[in-house]
């Protein structure tokens, strides 16, 4: 009997051994489940398609289009007709060989990209012959499609994330698109949405053999948000057309809301060239054009002397500070001596007596120099007067970033007493020293969007709303994000100034900007400017500037036009601004002759002058 027990106990002992082992493996150790998941399950991200971008009237500006990356898995590849492939995709055999070698070095089993972003037309031709190329396949991707190819400077562009960005933000995967500039960058999170995941069952060769658990564990991606811009696509397109072959910018704002209607920079580029296979080549061409600087947004980043339009602000500050009243009269004798031996020229005739209204529409240098002197001298000392003057300008949004929703910008510059104390010596300067500020030619620098913004503040008679580029449907959010910014100048002081600006267009320097049936208020500017040419300060042809708003009562549009080296404000800037206003308010332009002149006019000759290496004349 003992032998039977031995045999039974061997059997039972083995069973016990197995049960203990099973208990530890299956019930106590948890590591195996994780290993098994890594082993056999592949988690693949699903990207929501990038959000669409519309203009203020609901016109689709930016959509998405499929492109195809040609991929290869080296292990599955075999000898193929390289000539045919290179011809179909029009790229060189060397390039193909380099890419294939790279792919092999990277991994024999994992896919590598051979050709990026093949357009769907090219793909269609190759797709039906793809059976001849074992191991090759197309991987679909979506990139931007600019339905209306405008406003590249506002929209920005997208490109694949780089490894550095992935390190900073781990939610990005290699090959994913990221917004690089403009709206695409500012609203990256909304436009991108949130990616989801799909789980796949892998086999022992790391190949996907189907979805895992019929996709029960898959997480749906959170769809991206569409964005409605404040831009008016028609106006933007028109502005870009008017600015062709010129350099400069147009900024148009709706004064009552601060919504930017158009932001034109010239020269510009077609956003569609930064999509697809030629992207890299085109982008470096844009980047390397350091003369015309197509990537430089002149509307936001170019700091110019504001010129004569700045006189309007000095008039308002003078009124508020009681330095002048609307009836104050200053005399002008083709200019005036602002200090001993220092004469500032003006185009007024000898013996002219100007009141404020006349001073504005005649753009009298003497009038505003004297006003400016009174502002500074009215205070206890020049320093205090200067700082008070500066604080008014700051409240007009000058001298600092405006805080709009695009990632680039410039502060401009409004000098204060500390600046002049450093440049001269404390107490060693007074109004005559800094008199150029009175006519917008001194140390003051503004960007076109800042000028458009103070024009909007004048149109609103005393306040502005921060310019912005996207429309919000949520009224509460909109009001909290974009409150009224008071300029600190009483609205009663605006009437004379606005009347003066109206007169500028009616009978003054900008008669060309007059539009039948619309009361336009404006102010021209002709700004001296200098560059360093071969180490010498050289004066170039003046910049042509115009600020305007219309209609006079209840304004719908405030606009600034800046044309580099265009000479008189009335020669280029005023007509362009006038056409823009007419286009926006009337929907069509009656003055075909003016439109033709602006559309076809080119300043290229002017821009070539300093580069020619020969002596040249300016202001012709």
């Amino acid at each position, binding site marked *: 009997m003992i032998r039977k027990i031995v045999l039974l106990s061997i*059997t039972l002992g083995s069973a016990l051994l197995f049960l203990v082992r099973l208990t530890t493996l*299956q*019930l106590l150790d948890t590591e195996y489940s994780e290993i098994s998941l890594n082993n056999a399950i592949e988690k693949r991200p699903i990207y929501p398609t990038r959000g669409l971008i519309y203009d203020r009237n609901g016109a689709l500006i930016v959509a998405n289009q499929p492109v195809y990356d040609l991929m290869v898995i080296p292990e599955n590849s075999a000898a193929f007709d390289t000539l045919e492939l290179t011809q179909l995709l029009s790229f060189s055999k060397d390039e193909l060989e380099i890419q294939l070698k790279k792919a092999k070095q990277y991994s024999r089993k994992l896919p590598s990209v051979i050709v990026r972003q093949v357009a769907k037309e090219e793909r269609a031709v190759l797709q039906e012959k793809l059976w001849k190329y074992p191991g090759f396949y197309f991987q679909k991707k979506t990139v931007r499609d600019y339905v209306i190819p405008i406003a590249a400077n506002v929209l920005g562009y997208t490109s694949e994330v780089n490894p550095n960005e992935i390190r900073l933000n781990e939610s990005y995967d290699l090959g994913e698109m990221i917004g690089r500039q403009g709206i695409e960058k500012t609203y990256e999170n909304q436009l991108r949405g949130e990616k989801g995941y799909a789980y796949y*069952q892998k086999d022992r060769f790391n190949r996907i053999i189907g979805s895992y658990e019929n996709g029960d564990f898959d997480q749906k991606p959170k769809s991206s948000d569409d964005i409605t811009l404040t831009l008016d696509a028609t106006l933007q397109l028109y502005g870009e057309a008017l600015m062709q072959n010129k350099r400069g910018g147009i900024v148009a704002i709706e004064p009552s809301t601060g919504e930017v209607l158009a932001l034109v920079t010239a020269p510009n580029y077609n956003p569609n060239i930064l999509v697809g296979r030629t992207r890299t080549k085109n982008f470096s061409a844009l980047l390397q054009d350091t003369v015309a600087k197509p990537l430089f947004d002149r509307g936001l980043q170019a700091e110019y002397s504001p010129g004569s339009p700045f006189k309007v602000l000095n008039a308002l500050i003078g009124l508020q500070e009681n330095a002048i009243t609307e009836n104050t009269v200053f005399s002008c004798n083709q200019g005036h001596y602002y200090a001993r031996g220092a004469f500032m020229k003006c185009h007024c005739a000898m013996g002219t007596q100007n009141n404020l209204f006349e001073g504005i529409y005649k753009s009298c240098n003497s009038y505003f120099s004297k006003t400016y002197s009174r502002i500074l001298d009215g205070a206890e000392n020049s320093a205090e007067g200067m700082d008070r003057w500066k604080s008014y300008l700051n409240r007009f949004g000058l001298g600092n970033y405006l805080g709009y929703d695009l990632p680039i910008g410039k502060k401009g510059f409004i000098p204060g007493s500390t600046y002049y104390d450093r440049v001269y010596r404390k107490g060693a300067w007074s109004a005559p020293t800094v008199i150029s500020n009175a006519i917008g030619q001194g140390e003051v620098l503004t960007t076109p969007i800042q000028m458009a913004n103070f024009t909007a503040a004048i149109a609103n008679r005393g306040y502005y709303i921060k310019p912005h580029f996207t429309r919000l449907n949520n009224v509460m959010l909109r009001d909290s994000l974009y409150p009224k910014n008071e300029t600190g100048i009483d609205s009663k002081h605006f009437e004379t100034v606005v009347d003066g600006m109206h007169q500028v267009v009616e009978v003054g320097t900008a008669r060309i900007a007059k539009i039948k049936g619309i009361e336009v208020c404006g102010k021209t500017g002709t700004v001296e400017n200098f560059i360093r040419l071969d180490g010498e300060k050289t004066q170039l042809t003046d910049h042509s500037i115009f600020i305007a708003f219309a209609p006079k009562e209840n304004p719908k549009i405030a606009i600034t036009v800046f044309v580099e080296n265009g000479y008189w404000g009335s020669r280029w800037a005023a007509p362009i601004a006038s056409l823009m206003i007419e286009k926006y308010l009337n929907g069509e332009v009656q003055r075909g002759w003016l439109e033709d002149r602006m559309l076809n006019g080119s300043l290229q000759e002017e821009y070539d002058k300093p580069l020619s290496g020969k002596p040249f004349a300016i202001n012709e």
Partner: protein
Amino acid sequence: MNNNLIFRLDGISLIIYLALVCIGLINIYSTGYSEELIVLWNLENPIGKQFWFFVVSLCLLPLVLFIKPNFFDHLSYLILFISLPIVLIILQPDAGSALVFLGLFFVLLREGLDLRIFYLGLGMISIFIFTLLFDPLWVSICCLALILISYGIIKNNQQRTSKTPFITLMGLCVLFSYSVNFIFNSIFEQRHRDRFNIILGLETDTRGIGYNINQSKIAIGSGGFSGKGFLNGTQTKGGFVPQQHTDYIFTTISEEWGFLGSSSVVLLFTALICRVLIRAERHSTTFPRAYSYGFASMLFVHFFVNIGMTLGLVPTVGIPLPFVSYGGSSLLAFSLMLFIYLNFDANRLS
């Protein structure tokens, strides 16, 4: 009498047999499954073949049962004569066959094998394994100490004790433990050495030679308590475990049915083996008893080596899990063995 035979049949064994074959069929189906329905009776795929072999086995059941037990007894000499050359397979360098024959020690043990030889065998295996793990010097010292202690105990209990067997034993142990390394390095082939090294943890390698055992453990371990469910085993679907429908079928069971499934299979086998062993003892004649012990022994060796292998307790030896693994001849052979056992058992009293 024929009616009575049905009642005298060992129903429990038969039920366990049917359960094991069904478990086998379900899991073979799962290993071959790939998102599309497989037709059960299609001979093209493993599950179909296994199914038809099962059907054939069941058809043989009544035939085998109605044969008179004497028939096997009388025929045994003829069968022995015919099948004796099969024993030559032991000369082949195949560990599986050797182990199967070694398994017959159950019979020998029952029919009068000296227990000391059995213990000696166990001792040698222990010395072999310990010497691979530790220095032969330490193993020798431990063996000598153990033998001296047991000599002391026996001497205390019995007046007259011969020293010779103990001295012989001591010499044998020392000699053997020092020759283990020679046997291991010179007589074993590399694959055997690899298997031992992996099992004893002397080498860790989850990609090359240790791949099987590692993937097998992952499959079993990831099953958890209740498993991933029928057709949902990710290791099984991905084909990570080689030979999963044959030798490694236990990993599929463990992964998809969890601890519940795997322990059930272990318990079913234990119950069947114990039942055969207990029933075998009731035979009054030697032949059926020896046969039943032989059958239990076959079952045990296959059960122990196969499941031990998937659990990483026994070096890899390619033998199937009886009734469960895919393999028509294996299923047919084990079914016939079981049916003959049932025949003997049912006719015990007649």
